[in-house]
């Protein structure tokens, strides 16, 4: 089963790009997705679609990654649709609250949701085509200047690695406990919200206990393999190849063009 943030093995051009380039691209894209006006965002969306195709990522998996966020997307959309000022559509007016859907609200809501989904897809493309170790190596590269300020960059990198490792573990632990509960006849269908909430809290408690125990073991196992805080080396050597420079050039040129276009809209 796919969990958001999981790397999927592959050999596409995007998979082979230097992780620093991909990280830079993801950051630049994210800033632009949030910052530019409506028509340019559509262009960015198309660019992302290109990246998805180039990374040979299946739309089904993108769908799986986006699905848990649909609730929030819906919430954002309706908030905008109902609470934006503008020309009211007579069709839907909530009678007692005296609020109605506005045309500008729908447009704005749609745009915000589109930006939101684009951000998610950008993150999915990055994490699915880059192994966590390479992503971390890239982050370590960008954080390196902070070493002079005595920021423990190596420790931060290991913390990220362990966090990434524990994320799917956490989700699996939750699935496992839920299945175990169901197997013993624990079924929440048709029960009240209060009961569900109580069940959720007890589930979280069990999951956290399990994860703490596991983190403890993992710490021992890391120690057993000579882990010590501080400096460590990495087997990942980051090398920029021509394709990376080309990608960077494309990134900056299209970024520049889009920013330029943006001022005209």
């Amino acid at each position, binding site marked *: 089963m796919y969990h958001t943030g999981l790397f999927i*093995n592959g050999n596409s051009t995007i998979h082979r790009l230097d992780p620093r380039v991909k990280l830079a691209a993801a950051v630049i894209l994210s800033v632009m997705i949030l910052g530019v006006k409506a028509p340019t965002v559509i262009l960015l969306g198309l660019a992302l679609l290109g990246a998805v195709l180039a990374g040979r990522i299946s739309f089904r998996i993108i769908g799986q990654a986006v699905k848990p966020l649909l609730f929030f997307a819906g919430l954002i959309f309706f908030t905008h649709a109902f609470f934006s000022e503008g020309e009211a559509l007579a069709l839907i007016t909530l009678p007692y609250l005296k609020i109605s859907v506005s045309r500008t609200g729908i447009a704005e809501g749609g745009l915000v949701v589109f930006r939101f989904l684009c951000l998610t897809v950008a993150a999915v493309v990055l994490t699915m085509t880059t*192994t966590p170790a390479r992503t971390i190596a890239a982050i370590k590269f960008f954080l390196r200047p902070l070493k002079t300020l005595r920021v423990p960059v190596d420790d931060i990198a290991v913390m990220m*690695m362990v966090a990434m490792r524990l994320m799917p573990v956490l989700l699996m632990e939750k699935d496992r406990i839920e299945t175990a509960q169901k197997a013993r006849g624990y079924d929440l269908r048709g029960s009240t919200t209060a009961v569900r909430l109580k069940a959720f809290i007890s589930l979280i408690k069990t999951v956290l206990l399990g994860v703490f125990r596991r983190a403890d073991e993992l710490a021992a*196992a890391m120690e*057993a393999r*000579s*882990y010590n805080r501080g400096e460590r080396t990495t*087997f990942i050597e980051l090398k920029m190849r021509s394709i990376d420079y080309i990608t960077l050039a494309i990134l900056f040129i299209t970024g520049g063009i889009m920013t330029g276009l943006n001022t005209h809209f």
Partner: protein
Amino acid sequence: MIVIKNVFYQYEPEGVQALQGISLNIKNGEHVAVIGPNGCGKTTLIRHLNALLIPSGGNVCIDGLDTKDSQNHSRIRPLVGMVFQNPDHQIVGMTVEEDCAFGPENLRLKPADIRARVAEALVRVGIADLAPRNIESLSGGEKRLAAIAGVLAMRPRYIALDEPTAFLDPISIKRVMDLLEKLHGEGVGIIHITHNMAEAAGTNRIVVMNEGRLYLDGAPREIFGQIDKLQAIGMHLPKMTELMMKLKAAGLPVRTDIVNMEEAVDEVKKLLKK
């Protein structure tokens, strides 16, 4: 050589003594099985071997390095590889090769050296083809092998394994056991906890523990000859030994100091020729 001298260990200041005066020497290249009932201190004992636990009393010395001296830890840990009972609790990396690189990275080796060690370890374990795979996509047996590869990448002189075949299917068990046999052949000392008597019978030496103490210590044939003592602490015999004893009880003139299938087959052949 691993020298364990009169070791005591207590998890909590007022708690029970998990180890109560254990003394044991393990020579280079020996293959030792540690058996005993649940809670007898097997895991506690092997966690002393690479200074994860430090004795409350007594000493553990690995090739002359005392684990009580924390200065020695950085040298002891690469010497004794530790394979935990559950590979999921041990694997740090997201992919097989990333995890395999974790140890050498901690040793601050150069990238090229790390890659060489990772490649070597994966080939030794026979999972070179799994290198780029995500850990979560592996089967239980493959995860176990990946965990062993992660330890081998440190090029240890000894490997301590906590029930390396637990929860595995028969094919995976065979893969793990063949691997241990191969590593033993390459001169790596192996200390392995097991509940499977047939596995224990395949080693050079069996150490039986009970209630934090050394109960029996000897070659498999010697150990499984002491049926009464084993049964007194609830231990079983290997199936083959049990079979020969039943044949003997049924009046057939067979030897009962037999611990594996090959010996049993020879014995039955002899009987049929008579």
